[in-house]
């Protein structure tokens, strides 16, 4: 982006661009930069391409306990019209339809049928502040394990929850 803008300034100084063209080009560049992710998220010519987690289906003995815990501790937003008395939908991240995810606690059997298990989910906390994160966990009665920038706690049904920042929990730093 910096190289691009430097070239624009050169064009402006040499008269190749007028003031209006310069401003419009900067505006367009900003919009394209912001939308860059859209190109990265396009479907391939063949096959399917996963671009995110749509939702997590979580079965437990009492969905209300899970609902209140995840909403209260981790700031997930309960979609009130979708709370059926047997399940709820808790939104987080980008908005619905814009890449957002929802956590779906529901009353249901917890006996695993598959040979695989999702044994924990890790959530990214932006603007991670170690002291504030630990203090907030303590304020909710949670004692974390793990290391700075990557902590584990248990939810009301002893499901393992991990929270992390982008430095400690990043696939490209493994």
């Amino acid at each position, binding site marked *: *982006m910096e190289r691009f*803008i430097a070239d624009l300034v050169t064009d402006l100084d040499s008269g190749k661009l007028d003031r209006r063209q310069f401003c419009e080009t900067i505006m367009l560049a900003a919009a394209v930069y912001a939308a860059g992710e859209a190109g990265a998220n396009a479907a391939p010519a063949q096959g399917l391409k996963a*671009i995110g987690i749509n939702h997590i289906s979580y*079965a437990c*003995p009492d969905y209300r306990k899970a609902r209140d815990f995840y909403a209260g501790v981790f700031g997930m937003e309960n979609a009130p019209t979708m709370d059926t008395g047997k399940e709820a939908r808790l939104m987080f*991240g980008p908005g619905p*339809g814009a890449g957002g995810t929802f956590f779906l606690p529901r009353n249901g059997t917890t006996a695993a049928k598959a040979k695989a298990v999702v044994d924990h989910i890790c959530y990214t906390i932006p603007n991670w502040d170690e002291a504030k*994160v630990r203090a907030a966990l303590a304020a909710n009665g949670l004692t974390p394990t793990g290391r700075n920038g990557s902590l584990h706690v248990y939810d009301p049904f002893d499901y393992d929850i991990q929270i992390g920042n982008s430095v400690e*929990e*990043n696939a490209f730093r493994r």
Partner: protein
Amino acid sequence: MEGFVAQKLDDYKTGKISRRRLIETLTLAATTAYAQDANAAASNPALKVALVNHVSYTCPNFQRAADWYSKIFNLDQVGATQNDVALPFGKKGDKPMGVAVNDVPVTTLIIRSRDSDAPARGETTPRRKSRALVNHIAYTIADFNKDRVRAELKRLGYPNPLQDGEHSFHIVDVNGYDVQISGIEMTALGG
């Protein structure tokens, strides 16, 4: 933002700022102009989650499962060890869809084989036995089109996927785990 650009241009033209300063300022503005979410996130509680960082999927043969997920969802495998491998939903440096803040990495599926009864790394006591179960994960795929997805699943060996609404299908993976394939139109509010 346009007024801001015009103002900085005036400052440059009248000698108030240097050429270098103009370029730096406009570069910063252009790369953050649409990142309002960053400020919103900063004002939120310390524990407000922004995105799934990773899903930890444990199974008897991690490489077999990883190859399945790579094939179905076009995912690269990175950072393999003897026990696990990561399948990020994007390339290094990519921003997750819809996320403006800079310190949120793309979501990753980590597939591993390990003893669930063993203590976690750095711990001495075994993990607790959960009384809850994540019984399926729904993955958002790019450019969901019901007919195209059905055809792709057939090509991939799933001729009869279970349709769930207008924007998703269910299949099972190589370990019999329920996998939902969804369009972005499937949201917490319906779809």
